[in-house]
């Protein structure tokens, strides 16, 4: 059966290749779902930047070759507004109207959970590049893949590092959403030795952290973990430092960038730690190359979400090449399941549930506004490398 299909596909491809010989290149539409508006719009920009960068790089190199034929990439982008229903609509459109071979993206786990079953309905591979909810890859959905580390993986790495620091008690200030709540419960579970400090949640749109800070002070915590995005993160750190709180700060990957530094200043950030999927200045050629490309294109330092998304698209292309098709979702899925791709964030290889296992780093801000890598031990590097 498969052989017949592939035979058919191959002959069809051959036919196509033969017929419009004048056109050296055909466009392949790749589906992108992301949040361009709504509460997740800001991180959505970084995700899009990664996809744009990857697509441009491939197209600038003359496209990619499948079955002896060159294809260029055309991104078909839909805005999901962090709303599950909009996500489902976008996916349906990609599957039935645009008929794309593969879909990438999304930021919030709730929306991704609404998209994934449709991917399965249409045998259309769906590659997540940002959402961290661990349960997404637990639904026995063979068409769902995740490039980025999920909450559990992030927490394990961070807990591993924090155990060695032996700070106690530890307090938390977290966004009251999937990433924030997942982070708090995960770390608490993995750090049984640390005494409970204060746990404060805030909703999207809340900007005043002063009452949380007073509670952290009152709890005599040695460290505060900030599970939130760039914008609230900058507010929280400023308010913590202004309040004169003497605690170790631990943040998310959103807080380890030069852009973040611009919002505050080196003095406020000094000593702060963050887990990071992607240290943009690490002395690794693939990372350096990506960071330079990104900076040249967007005029700012690369972001982890961009790196993950860049890799996601590259993996998708590699899978299409391996499968020898730009239309058969099933074949692309099978290729994805077997893929072993070296991307910017490291080796991408999906487990049986579709989850990749990228390296998680812990970096720290230095006094001069650069960062150093503290974890893993193998990647340890001084100021300016993080």
């Amino acid at each position: 059966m498969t052989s017949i299909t592939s035979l058919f596909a191959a002959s069809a491809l051959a036919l196509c290749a033969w017929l419009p010989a004048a056109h050296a290149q055909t466009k392949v539409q790749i589906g992108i779902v992301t949040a361009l508006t709504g509460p997740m719009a800001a991180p959505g920009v970084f995700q899009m930047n990664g996809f744009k960068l990857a697509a441009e790089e491939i197209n600038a190199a003359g496209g990619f070759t499948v079955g002896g034929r060159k294809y260029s990439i055309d991104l078909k982008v839909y805005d999901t507004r962090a709303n599950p229903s909009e996500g489902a609509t976008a996916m349906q459109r990609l599957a039935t109207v645009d008929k794309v071979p593969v879909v990438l993206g999304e930021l919030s786990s709730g929306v991704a959970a609404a998209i994934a079953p449709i991917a399965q309905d249409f045998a259309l591979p769906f590659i997540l590049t940002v959402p961290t909810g661990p349960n997404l890859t637990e639904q026995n959905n063979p068409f769902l893949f995740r490039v980025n580390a999920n909450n559990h993986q992030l927490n394990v790495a961070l807990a591993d590092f924090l155990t060695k620091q032996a700070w106690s008690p530890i307090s938390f200030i977290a966004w009251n959403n999937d990433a924030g709540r997942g982070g708090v419960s995960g770390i608490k579970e993995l750090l049984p030795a640390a005494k409970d400090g204060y746990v404060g949640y805030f909703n999207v749109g809340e900007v005043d952290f002063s009452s949380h800070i007073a509670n952290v002070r009152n709890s005599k915590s040695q460290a505060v973990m900030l599970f939130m995005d760039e914008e609230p993160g900058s507010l929280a750190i400023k308010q913590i430092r202004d309040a004169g709180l003497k605690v170790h700060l631990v943040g998310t990957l959103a807080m380890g960038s030069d852009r973040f530094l611009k919002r505050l200043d080196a003095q406020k950030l000094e000593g702060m730690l963050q887990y990071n999927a992607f240290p943009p200045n690490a002395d690794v050629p693939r990372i350096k190359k990506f960071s330079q490309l990104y900076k040249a294109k967007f005029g700012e330092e690369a972001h982890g979400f961009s790196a993950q998304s860049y890799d996601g698209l590259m993996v998708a292309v590699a899978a299409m090449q391996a499968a020898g098709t730009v239309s058969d979702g099933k074949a692309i899925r099978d290729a994805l399941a077997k893929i072993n791709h070296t991307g910017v964030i490291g080796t991408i290889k999906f487990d049986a549930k579709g989850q990749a296992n990228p390296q998680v780093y812990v970096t720290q801000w230095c006094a001069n506004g650069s960062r150093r890598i503290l974890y893993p031990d193998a990647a340890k590097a001084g100021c300016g490398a993080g």
Partner: protein
Amino acid sequence: MTQALLEQVINGLMMGSVYVLVALGLVLIYGVMHVVNFAHGVLFTLGGYLGHFFFTQWWDSFWMATLLSMLSVGLVGYALERGVFHPLHGNLRNQVIASLGLILAFENAVIALWGPNALQWKVATTEQLVSVGELRFSVHHLGIIVLTMAMITALGLFLKHTRFGTAIRATSQNQEAALVVGIPVRRVQWSAFALGSALAALGGCLVGPLFLVFPQMGDVPLVKGLAGILLGGMGSVPGAVVGGLILGVTESVSTLFLPTDYRDAIAFMVMVGILLLRPQGLWGQRVRGED
């Protein structure tokens, strides 16, 4: 513990002051027009954005930018009163629904014009710190409390001792009677609407530099301002002040004892509970025209 309590009270006063500015605007408008303007939050946002715009584009002065922003939002308020709320007067349902429409229109227009990302508004006062024992606060932080108190006093004096203030009070107490004694009720209504809108803009400009200027910045102040005027008794100016401050302080003090993920839910539960026991609010009297 006492220190934490003190710190929380000061924090609460600061956020409470912002709620008060919103609540005052709502209450002024409610008083003379019997409209709860649900779009008041987007006027707060608009105020923040316009302040930021004037600050970065025209004048490098926080006060000039704030004044200009208040003026512009006041004009927007005037236009809304003339164009939307007055034509719908007497129809409470449609007024509320129109204000929901305004929320959608304004909030998304702001995103379309300025983008979804937060803007930073750097003002020197947010960087200067004042130490109180072990505690430290930014000057801007304390400035918000002081300025709000000044605004409240000024507004109180204005309402009590000027002709126009008296006209506003008379209109809120009894519109027909105000008409009979020759008070220009229409003028009172649109100017109160403009004044209320300008107060919302002031709130946005005060908060903008301390926090960030972003499209949803008015949502929380709106909801809390509404709760504040309900708590204080609809239509009562001192009630709005007390209601807003009580809300701010209990909110931050409660984080000492209660889980924060249910903070808003608890705040609303308490509000509904108080109102069930005292339907006229803590301060106000039962208002007419609410049947």
